[in-house]
């Protein structure tokens, strides 16, 4: 298979624009629940999903939108589902964290780590029923300490299952720096299961594509599981409305909300010594500070990176962006303009 950087860029664009529309709809009150967008993970999704064919399967986490969109699911169905419409992808019942498409063998779950067991199950079925097909599990860095995921790594290894584990490592699990709660490091841990690991810059779609291509190729040939450790940055934070992100963007007004009660806590009678309290306060402040830094693009907006690679044909790039914009605009209109706008309409 040949890498088609233009196609990858296009998918990433579609995903980004789609999720930006989702953010707007969320802000306008048309979308409910905890909305987790994958802005910043597009290169990982694109590079991996580009490898998939008919009969391949995907197990996704609480941030499934980019992969589903790129896998070819009708974005109108997807958006109608987010809006809670009876004609959405899952009849409005699943919602954006629980998206399923049997046709695409794609399933998501809001339980951290669950994509591991599901994917090895998909891979076992592939081994039995569809030799040559594969399964992919997507999850975040926080999932690596979930027992069922580690168990799933073991199952994949002992049965040489055709599965690719993709860790989208943004270094954070909600407000926790994963490193601070993960002994050793993810790559060594996975290697100890005898699983091949590739570590890549997850903002670089070319790098992801190559690593995923090799891994999935091996899986198709029966050479067993692989693990892709893909580093990325996610400026939108954990969920839409993430207070950490608010603080990063509006440090003064938002910090006050947090620090006033914190300062009160410092002065309450019983508790740690003042020195200890100051230290704890410092930890909170430094975490917020680090978030603030991590919640802005550095050089790692995957879309910027791929655009840079393609800017030699500026005109084509521009055309592509316009097309993607137009498509998503139409998607949003189509999704909003039906009569039965169950939920959104209520607002």
């Amino acid at each position, binding site marked *: 298979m040949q890498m088609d950087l233009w196609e990858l860029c296009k998918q990433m664009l579609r995903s980004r624009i789609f999720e930006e529309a989702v953010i707007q709809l969320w802000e306008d009150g048309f979308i409910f629940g905890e909305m987790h967008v994958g802005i910043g993970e597009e290169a990982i999704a694109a590079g991996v999903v580009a490898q998939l064919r008919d009969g391949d399967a995907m197990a996704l986490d609480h941030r499934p939108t980019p992969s589903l969109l790129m896998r070819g699911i009708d974005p109108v169905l997807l958006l109608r589902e987010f809006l809670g419409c009876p004609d959405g992808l899952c009849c409005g*019942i699943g919602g954006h964290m629980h998206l399923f498409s049997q046709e695409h063998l794609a399933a998501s779950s809001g*339980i951290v780590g669950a994509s591991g067991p599901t994917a*090895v199950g998909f891979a076992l079925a592939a081994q039995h*029923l569809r030799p040559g097909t594969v399964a992919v599990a997507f999850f975040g860095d926080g999932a690596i300490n979930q027992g069922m995921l580690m168990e799933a790594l*073991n199952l994949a290894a002992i049965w040489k299952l055709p599965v690719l584990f993709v860790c989208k490592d943004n270094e954070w699990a909600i407000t926790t720096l994963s490193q601070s709660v993960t002994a050793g490091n993810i790559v060594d841990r996975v290697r100890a299961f005898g699983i091949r690991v590739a570590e890549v810059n997850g903002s670089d779609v070319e790098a992801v594509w190559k690593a995923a291509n090799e891994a999935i190729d091996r899986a198709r040939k029966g050479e067993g599981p692989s693990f892709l450790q893909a580093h990325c940055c996610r400026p939108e934070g954990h969920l839409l409305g993430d207070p950490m992100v608010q603080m990063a963007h509006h440090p003064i007004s938002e910090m006050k909300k947090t620090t006033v009660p914190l300062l009160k806590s410092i002065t309450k009678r019983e508790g740690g010594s003042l020195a200890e309290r100051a230290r704890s306060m410092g930890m909170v402040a430094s975490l917020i500070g680090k978030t603030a830094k991590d919640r802005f693009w550095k050089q790692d907006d995957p879309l910027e990176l791929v655009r840079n690679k393609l800017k030699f044909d500026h005109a084509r790039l521009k055309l592509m962006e316009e097309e993607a914009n137009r498509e998503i605009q139409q998607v949003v209109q189509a999704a909003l303009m039906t009569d039965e706008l169950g939920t959104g309409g209520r607002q």
Partner: protein
Amino acid sequence: MRNMGFSDAIEDALAHAMAHDDKIIVLGEDVHMLRSNLFVRFGKERVRATPISEGAFVGLAVGAAMAGLRPVVEVMFADFLGVAMDALLNHAAKTNRFSGGRWNVPLVVRVACGGGYGDGGQHEQSLWGWLAHIPGLTVVVPSTPADAGGLMLSAIQCDDPVIYMEHKLLSNFWFDLMGTGRRETVQFDVPAQGAYGSVPQVWHPVPIGRAIIRRDGEDLSIVSVGVGVHRAMEAAVALEDHRISAGVLDLRTVSPLDRETVCSFISKTGRMLVVDEDYRDFGLSGELAASALEAGIPVRYGRVCTSDTIPYCRDLEDDMLPSTHTIVSTALELMEE
């Protein structure tokens, strides 16, 4: 008609199904030896021994079922489902709903359950009422070899997840291994009618969700499931001496509950005695009470269940689990009221 042990019946029906559908696979700890007959006949791909990773391998079975296989995944004892609960609660039970009814999980989770042989409170739980609380799970509990085979067949054919529960006092296989350890120096109160009996020449599915009246009665309606059915049958005989005619209903399926049969069965006598080896509170016995009240049947009601953690000591254990003796005394109280 043939005669068979309870677990032999399960294996026979399972082998029959596996012979006709390549998609059926068996997964679980030690299945290469625990199900060595199936292992030899169908090979190590279809009868697959797992590590002790119930969380992941039950989750794997859910995924495999979604992707076209029909797994029968064994979790040795119901007690160990705690480790695998997320796969049942949030995945097996919910995929059909979440997908808008479009994607099914044709999965059988086979577990041994129940006590009466001194294995202690972490190894003798029944938990069927607990599992039944979760919408989307079907729970079956056979009490005879014929139902054991027939319900296994139905469970396999079902397109939704079924928890198949095999009581260890009935299952000759588990009983020999865990109960007696093949000693002749111990004895347990094994219901003979349940452990061995006639089965059809050719297996037919026993419909899920259908209770069966094991004995008619005019004065008192005993509703039970699993080993409790046999205890209730014995109690019904003992109650004859007291000139009490007690009927016995075997639910066979806990969820979906055959409310219709339950209601007509209890209406007849106006007295319902529930015999339930699962924990008493917030479970099957309560749901049967609700079924009666919802249907507007003003029954007198009593229950003989397991009220607390099951003790190891055989005497205390016998006091804790529903026994013929307690059923009779509770029945007598209920008749007096």
